[in-house]
């Protein structure tokens, strides 16, 4: 496990073009980076790898001046010179030769290609009139150097493909004379062939002297292209390697981390309620939920899930594992009705399991009535309305139901009484507050309890739980685990979408693994280990048909 840890014992700092030393960055309620160090060699091809939420993007954004590290925490050096406290905006970093190809804040769709490239670094005549001709000449020259053809500079950026937009972003960085090119998950939205072409371009830039730093969670890219790699996990440094001296397995282990098996948070509950995974009778029973050949497109119009089929039985937890962006989000949204299927069907068994009905085209509300409950991935955006009270949040989705205090006129007394029961039943810690308190004032764990309570108290038959413990501490996570196990014991079918492999392995009766938009394997509890699942997750297993 100890490899050439690149702690730089006899390197003097002049070998490094960029150094982030002991950086800590916190956002309200979360520490995104904790004492992280990243040193990038001049002319290197440096990968930063980690799971979703590991703090990779935050680190890049600090170097790009978009975020400032917590004051007094750490030092930033560029070309060996300390610039701590000077990178107060992207404009400052751009001046120091740093360019960022961002995942989310890319080109402005309504502006033309040339306008996007020059924005913020415009050359002008007196009076502020743009020198369009000069700029387009310069840009055409950069593009021909890079071998980019077929991009009309006067075209609106929204008409370019995602891959072409990304290349224009690289052009934009080079137009600003960037010496260090940062890329945030550059291949997340690209088809494999486009990704190959992007890396070929980056390699040619590196040969011409540009330093490349890219953030990814794809091990294959790290092994194939990088010269050095920094691993982050949970906002902390989890390893620093020369790529040639490490292996895919070692990096995966550092990325995911392995909790000792004995550290299960509530072992007695597990044996008590489940009595072990319930797989034996599965073949005789009829499935509760049946997904067949589902093909789903993502928000950006790219195919996110291809021909996925999965069966869920009553009284089992099926975990969906996979690295972030493998299509889990789209699949979960399609099951609850937030996203339409391009092709394929979803069927739900009748209550007596004797027949099944197709719900592929049903609305979210209709599916909810039929018994599909949802714990959304993003608590703050999709899970609750933070400005509503706890009672109002608990009512949402049941607001037509008299029994919940809904109807044309809301029954405040019933809402309050039900919320009170829920608060006691789920042990929501209010402190000195009452059920009328703003949901946004609760801690993350207690907010999640309200979301889970709302999903479970509608007596659903299927529970779709997405990242149910994201951002929660161990205690709150334990509560969520217990709630999911109880749901299983009560006969619900639970689909657990999670990026936390330990969580999936611990809770699931079966584990389905997604890679590249496909379900590449479904393993029973007994065969699902960090090794077998991990191999499927990264597409490393031969014969899965999806390994590239």
């Amino acid at each position: 496990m100890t490899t050439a840890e690149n702690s730089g014992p006899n390197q003097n700092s002049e070998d490094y073009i960029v150094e982030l030393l002991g950086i800590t960055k916190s956002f309200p309620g979360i520490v995104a980076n904790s004492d992280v160090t990243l040193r990038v060699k001049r002319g290197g091809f440096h990968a930063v790898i980690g799971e979703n939420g590991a703090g990779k993007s935050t680190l890049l954004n600090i170097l790009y001046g978009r975020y400032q590290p917590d004051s007094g925490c750490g030092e930033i050096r560029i070309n060996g010179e300390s610039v701590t406290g000077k990178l107060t905006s992207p404009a400052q970093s751009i001046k120091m030769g740093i360019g960022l190809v961002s995942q989310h804040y890319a080109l402005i769709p309504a502006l033309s290609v040339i306008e996007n490239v020059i924005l913020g670094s415009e050359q002008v005549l007196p009076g502020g009139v743009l020198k369009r001709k000069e700029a387009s000449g310069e840009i055409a020259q950069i593009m021909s150097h890079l071998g980019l053809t077929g991009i009309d500079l006067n075209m609106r950026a929204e008409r370019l493909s995602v891959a072409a937009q990304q290349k224009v972003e690289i052009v934009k960085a080079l137009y600003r004379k960037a010496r260090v090119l940062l890329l945030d998950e550059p291949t997340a939205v690209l088809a494999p062939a486009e990704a190959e072409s992007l890396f070929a371009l980056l390699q040619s830039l590196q040969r011409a002297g540009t330093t490349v730093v890219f953030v990814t969670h794809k091990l294959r890219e790290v092994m194939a292209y990088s010269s050095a790699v920094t691993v982050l996990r949970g906002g902390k440094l989890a390893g620093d390697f020369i790529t040639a001296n490490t292996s895919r397995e070692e990096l995966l282990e550092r990325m995911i981390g392995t909790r000792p098996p004995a550290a299960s948070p509530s072992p007695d509950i597990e044996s008590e309620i489940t009595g072990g995974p319930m797989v034996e009778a599965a073949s005789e029973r009829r499935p509760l939920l049946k997904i067949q050949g589902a093909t789903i497109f993502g928000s950006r119009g790219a195919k996110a899930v291809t021909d996925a089929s999965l069966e869920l039985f009553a009284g089992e937890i099926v975990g969906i594992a996979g690295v972030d962006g493998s299509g889990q989000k789209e699949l979960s949204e399609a099951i609850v009705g937030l996203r339409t299927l391009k092709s394929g069907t979803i069927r739900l068994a009748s209550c007596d399991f004797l027949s099944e009905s197709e719900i592929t085209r049903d609305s979210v509300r209709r599916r909810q009535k039929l018994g599909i409950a949802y714990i959304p991935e993003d608590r703050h955006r999709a899970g609750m309305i933070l400005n509503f009270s706890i009672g109002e949040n608990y009512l949402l989705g049941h607001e037509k139901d008299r029994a919940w205090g809904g109807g044309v006129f809301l029954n405040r007394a019933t809402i309050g009484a039900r919320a009170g029961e829920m608060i006691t039943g789920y042990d929501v810690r209010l402190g000195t507050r009452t059920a009328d308190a703003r949901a946004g004032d609760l801690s993350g764990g207690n907010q999640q309890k309200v979301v889970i309570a709302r999903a479970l108290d509608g007596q659903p038959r299927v529970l779709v739980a997405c990242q149910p413990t994201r951002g929660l501490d161990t205690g709150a996570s334990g509560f969520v685990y217990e709630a999911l196990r109880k749901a299983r014991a009560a006969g619900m079918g639970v689909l657990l979408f999670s990026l936390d492999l330990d969580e999936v392995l611990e809770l699931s009766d079966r584990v389905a693994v997604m890679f590249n938009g496909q379900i590449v394997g479904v393993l029973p509890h007994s065969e699902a280990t960090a090794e077998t699942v991990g191999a499927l997750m990264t597409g490393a297993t031969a014969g899965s048909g999806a390994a590239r």
Partner: protein
Amino acid sequence: MGSAGNQGFWFTALLVATLNGAAPLLLAAMGGILSERAGVVNIALEGLILSGAFAGAYFGQHSALIGLVAALTVGAALGLLHAVLTQVTKMNHVVSGLGINLLAAGATRYLTLVLFPDGITSKSLPPAFYLASAAILPAALAFVLRDTRFGLRLRAAGENPESARMAGVSILPVRLVAVTLSGICAAFAGTFLSLGETHTFSRDMSAGKGYIALAAVIFGKWNPAGAAVASLFFGLFYAVQTQLQIRGLNINFLGVEWTSPALLDMLPYLMTLAALISVIGRATPPAALGQEEGSAH
């Protein structure tokens, strides 16, 4: 049956009335574009027009030029106020605009009572001055938006401020300048009412022109040329309304006197409403219009 000469007079009168009706809308609409293309909703146009009309009349009693300068100064100050309220104190754009409109309506009424309870007569500026301005301004604004650094940054600020910031642009100064200029344009439109058209100020003389100018911005898809055409179109309805009133035509149908002044007064507003309904869903505003600058993480 009128003679050919009479018909020609009809046409000329309608044309002049159209231009007069359109000029203030067009000038204010250019202000609306400046603000909204930068991402700041500006329903304050109404109050800005009213304030400009008032300042123009009051300070233009001895010299129309002084009145004009004073009006533009007031417009700049109120525009800057709207910019600071929305961008620095992060107030909701509509709330800030509404506040400025109420302030302008209340303050001009009060000041009218205090300063000139018996009315006021100001000097005047030639209508040709306004018509020339209205002809030049859309072209000038189109050039600024398209071909200058300020225009590019302004559009970027209205489409995606966070992307613009990532490209090294500071959004705040761009928006402060844009909304201040917006105030100047709207106040200029206001002086047309007091210095150009009537040589006086009467209370609430803006009469919804700020909102109709905003409708012209939407109808013109946030483009100077489009908004100019829309202003002319809306100006035509003002002209038809006044011409019908002047000529005292009587159209009785189904027992309703359609040409009664009360109904005719509604014409420009009804037509604006109809025009807006026809573009609903097809007009795309600047993508970041009205949004707070990215506090994303």
